[in-house]
Every structure is written in structure tokens, then in C-alpha cells.
């Protein structure tokens, strides 16, 4: 059995209770990659990949934990942290109401889940952003959870894996406090690095703005899922600024690897084995 297949069968066995979120409702769904109509159950069984073209559908942070970690090994931390509304922010909808609605819709308290677990027997700290909660954007809670995770990884001398799915970057609704989270998390990563920590950053679709411009780019190793949208400025903003057509693969994982900012593009079924293998090179 090839490495990839081995990983695949291993992963498939852990994903039987696939979370329904991230994949549109209904028995059949349309693939954004090849536009084929595919059986949803089949997509879920294949870790959220299109059976026709291998397109990576978005998956939830909880589903990602199930896919990556050894069964029932995840111990969630800092779940007592909850967002509030320091700016008393309101656009068309008050931020307070938006938070409640997002919590109800996603079943999450915030866009970040963090904790400790085992990956093929290796202990590690894992933190993830879930792109479905206010676009996975980073406000105070996300910044705090990540910083605490990094500080714990430093203290416990454990490898650190952060999986980013953040189209929203730094969260507007918490204003300057969100921007400052970028500095806070990056400073914690500096200390972790200087203490000898090993950090793998996994970029998934999408990872943009203030998340891309802070922790997500700072991995000792940066991995990306195929064809994820990754960048600083949103493609629409770039297009409006320079007023020319963008290259077809602009801001994809492959584009970033070509330009030197991603170590490896890794498809989802191989991710678990790949991370475990990398950890073995740098962590004894």
C-alpha cells in the first residue's frame, strides 16, 4: 500500500461520524471544483473531498480534529473563554446579536478551538480556526486562545500545530483590539521558537488578511491544502486597485509554493501522516 493510501484508509476509519457543517445541506451537493453533483455522504466519507475531482470542501474545526488526532485523544482547553463586545459595535446588526446568531448556527462559542492531543501517538498542541464562525476571523478570544496554546506548548515543550481557516483575517467588530492580537500571537511564537519549539502551520481555504499576516505565515514548516485561497489582500481589492485581470492561480496554495512561501502542498488524506513524519524530524 502506498503511503497515501495507507493514510487514506487510516483517516477514513476515524471520520465515520463526519460533521455535517461545511458541506451544504441536502443529500446531494454540487462540487465547486468540477461542478459535478455528488452524493454528500460519499464526500463526508472521503474527509470532505469531492469523489469526482478531489476538490477540498471546507470542514469544521471539530471534524478536522477527528481527522487529524488519535481517536478520543483531544483534550479541549480554554473553552471557558467567550467573546464580548468591547466597542459596542453595530453595523446593520449589533455585534452582540451577531455573536449569538453565529454561536447558535455553528454550535461553537468562538472561531478557535485549542487543546492537547495525540497524532499517531505523538503528543502535541493543536489549535484551529473554524472558517464558518464570522469567517474564522481573529478577535480577542481567538488571539487569547492561540497565545495561551503557544505558551502551553512552550512550557510543556510540545510541538505545535495550528490549522487556519480564516477568510476574515482580523475581526473588524473588535476594531484595534483584533489588530493587536496579531502582535500578541506573533510575540508568543517568538518566545516559543527561542525556547526550541517546533511549529507547523497548516493553511486551509481560505487564509487571508491579518491571520495570514501573523501566525499562519510563521510556521517552521508551512503546509497548505491544495487550491486553498491564501493571501494578504482579498482578490477583489487587488483587482479594484490595479484594474487588470488576475493570474488564474493567483493566491492559491500552489501559487504560494511557487513563490516560496509554502513548504508543501498536502492533500487532506495525507495530512495526518505528513505532520507526524515532520514532527519526527525535529522533535525527539
Amino acid at each position, binding site marked *: 500500500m502506498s503511503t497515501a493510501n495507507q493514510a487514506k484508509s487510516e483517516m477514513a476509519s476515524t471520520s465515520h461520524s463526519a460533521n455535517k457543517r461545511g458541506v451544504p445541506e441536502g443529500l446531494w451537493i454540487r462540487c465547486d471544483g468540477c461542478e459535478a453533483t455528488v452524493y454528500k455522504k460519499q464526500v463526508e466519507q472521503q474527509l470532505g473531498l469531492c469523489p469526482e475531482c478531489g476538490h477540498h470542501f471546507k470542514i469544521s474545526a471539530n471534524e478536522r480534529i477527528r481527522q487529524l488526532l488519535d481517536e478520543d485523544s483531544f483534550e*479541549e*482547553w*480554554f*473553552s*471557558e*473563554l*467567550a467573546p*464580548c463586545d*468591547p*466597542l459596542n*459595535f453595530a*453595523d*446593520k446588526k449589533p455585534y452582540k446579536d451577531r455573536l449569538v446568531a453565529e454561536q447558535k448556527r455553528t454550535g461553537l462559542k468562538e472561531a478557535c478551538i485549542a487543546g492537547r492531543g495525540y497524532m499517531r501517538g505523538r503528543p502535541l498542541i493543536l489549535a484551529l480556526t473554524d472558517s464558518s464562525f464570522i469567517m474564522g476571523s481573529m*478577535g*480577542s*478570544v481567538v*488571539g*487569547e486562545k492561540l*497565545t495561551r496554546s503557544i505558551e502551553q506548548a512552550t512550557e510543556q515543550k510540545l510541538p505545535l500545530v495550528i490549522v487556519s481557516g480564516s477568510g476574515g483575517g*482580523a*475581526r*473588524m467588530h*473588535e*476594531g*484595534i*483590539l*483584533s*489588530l*493587536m*492580537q*496579531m*502582535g*500578541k500571537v*506573533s*510575540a*508568543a*511564537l*517568538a*518566545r516559543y*521558537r527561542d525556547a526550541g519549539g517546533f511549529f507547523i502551520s497548516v493553511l486551509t481555504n481560505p487564509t487571508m488578511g*491579518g491571520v495570514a*499576516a*501573523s501566525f499562519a*505565515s*510563521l510556521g517552521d514548516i508551512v503546509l497548505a491544502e491544495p487550491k486553498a485561497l*491564501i*493571501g*494578504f*489582500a*482579498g482578490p477583489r*481589492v*487587488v483587482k479594484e*486597485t*490595479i484594474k487588470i485581470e*488576475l*493570474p488564474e492561480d*493567483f493566491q492559491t496554495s500552489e501559487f504560494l509554493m511557487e*513563490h*516560496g*512561501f509554502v513548504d508543501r502542498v498536502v492533500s487532506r488524506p495525507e495530512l495526518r501522516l505528513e505532520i507526524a513524519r515532520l514532527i519526527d524530524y525535529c522533535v525527539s
Partner: protein
Amino acid sequence: MAPTHVLPFEKPIVELEQQLEKLENQPDPSPSTRESIRNMRVEINRMRREIFETLDPWDVVQVSRHPDRPQTLDYIELLFDEFVELHGDRAFGDDRAILTGFAKLEGQKVLFVGQHKGRTLKEREECFYGCAHPEGYRKAINKMEMATRFGLPIICFIDTPGAYPGIGAEERGQAYSIAHNLREMSTFNTPIICVVIGEGGSGGALGIGIGDHICVMEYAYYSVISPEGCAGILWKSVQHKDKAARALKFTSKSLLELGVIDEIIPEPLGGAHRDHWQTATMLKGSLLKALKDLQAVPKDQLLDRRYQKFRNYGVFEEQVANADTE
């Protein structure tokens, strides 16, 4: 000097000033004319104070972007005894949107890093209206690293609408360059002072914004996103930029209230564009004091202090912990 660019809320002031000028130019003014001149001067001051004390956040944005507002190159002339510009990032080029060099402030040697938006059309085109590329952030971090090794304090002036959103910028790693700076600036064991002199536009501003003393000029703003960008996303139309400006709480006063900045540097009545020299004098006083204070911090405490400063940013609730956490 007649102002070249008048903001909408400055109009009543400028009209009165023009009337005053006419009166002042009258040869042999009568006692009653002299009386009117005096009254008018008082009235202009009163009016300016009243208008500027109640500026709406969107008005503040307009002051921060005023074409006559002093910029980094103006301050270099007004503040420093000497400036030795250092070019280039040793990898790609010399970004004109971020200027770096050695400078002397009242005889004290420092490394200066400043974002420049451009005063003439030529300057503005050269530096992309103050929007830096990855090579700008790389140049800044390289010079700062060097300055740290030679024990020079660092002064960063922030003035940018945001990092440049373009194909080349993305190809050359805009996100990585900013991220790298955030991480490295937290480790440089030398005093770092950051001043937002005009626009503090999101990650592009923060990319040279990690420091020990963070100040914002009175009519500058510092924000996670531009009011136009925020309005476009959350209100679905740039038209609502004034609403976004109010919601984002990014004026100097709000930032101080939120505990994000250490100091507001006052500007002359009517804004920095009214009097460059006086603005620079006030700014210089603040810089000298901050330098002195930071140089008194023991070397082995400086980085901890900086770490804690950023560590404490954020507002959240900590609900009663479940028995199974930690």
C-alpha cells in the same frame, strides 16, 4: 498663506480668515476697524476650537489625510539634526514607501523608520501613496536588527492607508513579511517608539508598529481596517464610511480609552497641517521624554515589558471553568 486644500468643516473658519485678511490689509485702519480685527481674531479662535473639539471620527480621517499634513520627510527635516538614509532590503529593491536611516535627535543617535505617502505627485507615485511592498517591511526589519546589535533605539513613524494590495506584493509575500516583522520586533532588545503620525492602516501599519511606547497624534487614526473597507464589507457600500468610522473607535481618544496606546501627542489648534513647526516641536518633546523613560528601563526587563504590553491586549469573558479544562 492661503490654504490650498480646505476640508468641508474648515470652510467657515477660512471664510472668516479671508475677511480678516481684507481688514488687516486696509491702510490706516480706523479705531473701529481695529476693534473688528481684534474681535474677529477672537472669534476665529473660538470657532476653530469649537469645531475641532467636536470632530466626527470621519472628519478626523480627513484631517489625517490632509494633503498639507506633515509627512515623514517633513518631520525628518524638522526633528533631526542629521539623517543618514540607508537604502534597500538586500533581496529585491528599495521601497520608497518606508524610509530608513540613522538620525540624531538632539544629539541622540537613533534608527529611524518612517512610512511616507508622498507630497508631490512624483513622490506619491514613487511610494504608492504610502502603501509598502514586502521589500519595504524587509528593509525596515533588516535595519532594525542591525540597530539593535549596535544599541541604537528605534523610532517608527506610521502613516499608511495599508500595505499595497497588488500582484507583485502578493507574489513576494506581503503576508509573510508583515508576520515576520511582528515576530522579530517583539525580540529586539532596544527601546522602540512607534508614532502614528497620520493613517494607521491595519496590518500595513502594525508591520512597523510593535514597540514599547505607542503614541498616536491627536488627529491621526489607527484601525484594523480603513473606514471605506469596513463600510464596503459590513454595510455593502462605501457610502457608509462615516458610520464605519464611528463604529471602529479608532480616533486617538478612543484608542487611549481602550488602553491600546500610551500617549496622544497634541496637535496645534486646527490640526497639524496648520503649523508644521509647532507640531514637530510638540512631537519632539514627546519623543525625547519617551526615549529617556525607556532608556531607564533595565535591559533585562525591556522585552518582558513589551511582551506583557501586547499580551494584555484583548477583551473577553472568562466563564466559570469546567472541571475538565486544564
